[in-house]
C-alpha cells in the first residue's frame, strides 16, 4: 500500500477575460501516490498547464474563480496564505519545470548561480552552502562541475533542460511538475532526458505530474494516466489498463490518432476542433466530436464512473 501524497478535489480555476470567463480547470479531482508519476495528457488548450499552475499557485492576475481542495499529505494547501504557500510549499515541497523554461534561463547569470537561486530565496541558505547544493544537483542531472561557472549560451539544448531540472530538484521537493519538459528538444535528446527522469524518480522517490500532449511520450513515465479535455479530467487509469484499453471515447480517439513506428495501424483523426473554454458545449464537453454520443450526452454532464481498481471515466456509456 502506497501513501497518497497529493489529492485534488473539485479544483477550479477560471480566468476572467474580455471575451468571457475561461473555465480552464473545472472540478478536477485526482490522487497522486508517493513515488508515482501521473501523466496528464490532452491537446493544447485543454487546461493542463492551467491545472499545474493551480496546484503550484502561480496564477495570472485575471483570476475569476480559484476554489477546491489540494491536499498535500492531508493538509489543504489551498487554505494557506500566499506568503505561507511561498515559504512552505512552492519549491520546498512541489517544484515545477515550466514549458520552454530552458529558453527562459537568464542569459547574464552563470548557471551555477541560477540553480542555487531557489535555495537562496526559499531556504535562505548562505551562498557557499547553496553553491555546494547546486553543484550536487547539477551532478545528479548529469552536468559536470566545470559547467557551474558557464553561461546559458555556452550550453546545448539538452544541457539547458538538465539545468532547469536541476533548478527544480535543488530544494529536494517531494513532487515535481513537468510541463512538456522536452517540447523543444530533438528525439534523441528527449530520450536522454526521459532516461534521466526515470532514474531520478527511482533514486529520489519523486512523484511526478507529467504534462504532455504526446500519448506516446507519456508512456515513458506514466504509472497513471489522466486525460484532460475542455478543462475536465475525462479518464484516469493506471498505465497498463489505459494503454491496453482506454475507456473514454476521447481517450480511444486520441490513442487511435497517434502515429506509431513499430506497429502496423493506420492512424485516425478526430473530426472537429477542441471546444472553446468560454462557451463549452452543454452536457459532456466531448459530445459534438464523439462518434458514440447519444441523447443524454448533449443534455447532462456525465458524473465520474468507477470501472474498478481506480479506473475512473466520465462518460455516460458506463452508467449502469
Amino acid at each position, binding site marked *: 500500500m502506497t501513501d497518497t501524497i497529493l489529492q485534488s478535489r473539485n479544483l477550479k480555476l477560471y*480566468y*476572467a*477575460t*474580455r471575451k468571457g470567463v475561461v473555465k480552464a480547470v473545472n472540478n478536477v479531482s485526482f490522487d497522486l501516490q508517493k513515488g508515482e508519476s501521473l501523466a496528464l495528457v490532452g491537446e493544447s488548450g485543454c487546461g493542463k498547464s492551467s491545472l499545474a499552475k493551480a496546484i503550484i499557485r502561480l496564477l495570472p*492576475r*485575471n483570476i475569476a474563480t480559484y476554489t477546491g481542495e489540494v491536499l498535500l499529505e492531508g493538509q489543504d494547501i489551498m487554505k494557506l496564505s500566499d506568503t505561507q504557500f511561498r515559504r512552505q510549499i512552492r519549491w520546498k515541497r512541489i517544484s515545477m519545470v515550466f514549458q520552454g523554461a530552458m529558453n527562459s534561463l537568464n542569459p547574464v547569470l552563470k548557471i551555477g548561480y541560477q540553480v542555487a537561486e531557489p535555495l537562496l530565496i526559499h531556504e535562505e541558505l548562505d551562498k557557499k552552502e547553496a553553491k555546494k547544493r547546486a553543484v550536487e544537483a547539477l551532478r545528479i542531472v548529469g552536468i559536470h562541475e566545470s559547467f557551474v561557472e558557464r553561461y546559458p549560451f555556452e550550453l546545448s539544448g539538452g544541457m539547458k533542460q538538465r539545468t532547469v531540472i536541476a533548478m527544480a530538484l535543488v530544494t529536494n521537493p517531494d513532487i515535481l511538475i513537468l510541463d512538456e519538459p522536452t517540447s523543444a528538444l530533438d528525439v534523441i535528446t528527449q530520450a536522454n532526458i526521459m532516461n534521466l527522469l526515470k532514474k531520478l524518480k527511482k533514486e529520489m522517490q519523486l512523484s511526478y505530474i507529467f504534462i504532455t500532449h504526446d500519448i506516446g511520450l507519456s508512456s515513458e513515465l506514466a504509472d497513471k494516466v489522466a486525460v484532460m479535455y475542455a478543462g475536465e479530467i475525462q479518464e484516469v487509469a493506471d498505465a497498463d489498463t489505459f494503454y491496453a484499453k482506454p475507456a473514454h471515447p476521447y481517450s480511444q480517439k486520441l490513442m487511435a490518432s497517434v502515429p506509431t513506428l513499430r506497429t502496423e495501424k493506420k492512424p485516425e483523426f478526430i473530426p472537429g476542433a477542441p471546444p472553446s473554454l468560454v462557451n463549452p458545449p452543454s452536457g459532456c464537453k466531448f459530445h459534438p466530436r464523439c462518434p458514440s454520443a447519444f441523447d443524454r450526452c448533449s443534455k447532462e454532464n456525465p458524473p465520474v464512473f468507477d470501472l474498478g481498481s481506480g479506473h475512473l471515466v466520465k462518460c455516460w456509456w458506463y452508467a449502469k
Partner: protein
Amino acid sequence: MENAAAEYSIKGILKQLLTYKSGVFGISLLVLLILISVYTMITIPYSTAIELWRGGENVWIENPRNAQPTWIRYLGKNLPETIKRDSTQAGRVGTIKVLTPIPERNMKLLHISFSFDYEYDDFPSEINIFFTSKYNTSAPLLRIYWIKPSGTKINLMTYIPRSQEERLSLSINPTVSNRLYAYTVNVLGGEPQVPLLVEQAMFAMEDETMNSTLTATPMKGKYELIIEGTLYGEDSDVDAKLIVYGKVYGLAGTDHLRRDLTVALLWGTPIALSFGLTASLTISLLQLLIATISGYYGGKVDSAIQRLTEGYMILPFLPFLILIATFYRLDIWILLLVIIVLSVFGGGVKSTRALVMQIKEYPYIEAAKAYGASSKRIILLYIIPKILPPIVPGLIGSVPGYVFLEAALSLLGLGDPYLPSWGKIIEDSYAGGALYKGHYYWVLEPASMLILTALAFSFLGFALDKIVNPKLREV
C-alpha cells in the same frame, strides 16, 4: 489562437474603441473638436477670420477691452455688460431724438436722450460717445448732461464736434473729469481720499463711499444721458451713439485690442487639428516607408539610411527650428513643411526598422518570396499593412506634441503672424501681462483648448494601443 489582425477594419476598431472608457472619452472629445472646426469654417470663413483678427481697433471698437467671458457672472459678481444706445435708431427702448427746426434763425434744436437701467454690481470699464455730424458753416454746439437714478443731473461738458465722425471718450476727457470731481466734492462735502475715475463717479452711490476708488459702489437704477444742441444750417444734423462698455463679453471675452477671443479660439481648433494631424501623419508614414525600405533591403541602403537617421537624431531639433523660423518669417504651412523635413529621419525610423527586421523573417514573407512576390510588392502589400496597426496609436498619440510645438513656437513669437491660433492668444496674453493683471481667462482659455486636444488624442491613442497591441490589455 487569438489574432487581432482582422479586427483592424475601421468598423471593427471603432466598435472595440467604444468598449474602452478611454476610447469613448477620446472619441467624444475628438468629435467635439471636429464639430467646432466644421462650425467655425462654415460660420467664419477664413478671409473673414483674418480680417477680424488683423483688422485693427475699428472692427472691434464697440467691444470692451480685456473683458472676461460673460458666463463668469454666474460664478460671482454681476459684472456689467456693454450697453449701447444709438440715436439713428430713435424710438427703440431708451432712445429719443427730437430735432426742432427754427426756420427764422436757420437753426435747429437737438434733443437726444439715452436712458437705461443699470443693475450691475460693478462699474463699466469705459464710456464713449460717437458723434456723426453734418453741418455746413458752423459746427454744432452740444451740451451733455448725465442724470443718475437719484435724480442728480450733472452737466458733463459742452462739446463741439470738429469733424464728421468723432469719438468722445468720456473716460479720459479732462473737462468731464473736472466736472465729476466737483460733483464728488459736493456730495462728500470735502475732497475725496482717492478721486474716482470718470466711469466710477458717473455710476457711484452718492454717499461716503465716493471717498475712494476702493469703496465706491455702483448705484442701481435708471440712468439717462441727455445731449442738447444747437445746429446751424438747413440740412445740419447730429447723431450720437453711446457705448457704456461692460466688463464681460461673449463666450470667451476680449483681449487688449478688444478682439473677441471666440474667433481665435474657434479658428485655433481646425488649425491645431490639421497641423497636428498632418504633421504626425506625414511624419509617421514617411518614417514608416523609410524604415521599411531600410529594414527590408538591408546592406548599403540600410547603412545609408541609418547613418542619416543618426545624424538627424543628433541635430538639435528645436534650436534648429527656431533658427529657421527666426530668419524666415514662416507661415504655418511652411512651418509644417519644415517640421516634417526636420523629422522624417527621426527616432521613429529606428524603432520601426527593428519591427521590419522582425517581420521580414515571418513565414508569410518567405512564402510570398516562394511564390514570386517582388520586393516592392512585399514591402507595400505585406510588410506595411502589418506594421501600420502597431504604429497607429503612437501616431495618434503624437498629434498633441505637434500642436504644442506650434503653440510653443507662437509663444516664442515665431508662429504664423496672421493666423489666429491658440498659441497666438497665449503669446498676446503673455505680452499683455495677463496673469500679472489678473486676466486669467486670457491664458486659461487657449490652454484649456490645448489640453482638450491633447486629452482627446492621448485617450484615443491609449485605447488604440490596447486594441492593436493585445499584450497591453489587462486580460
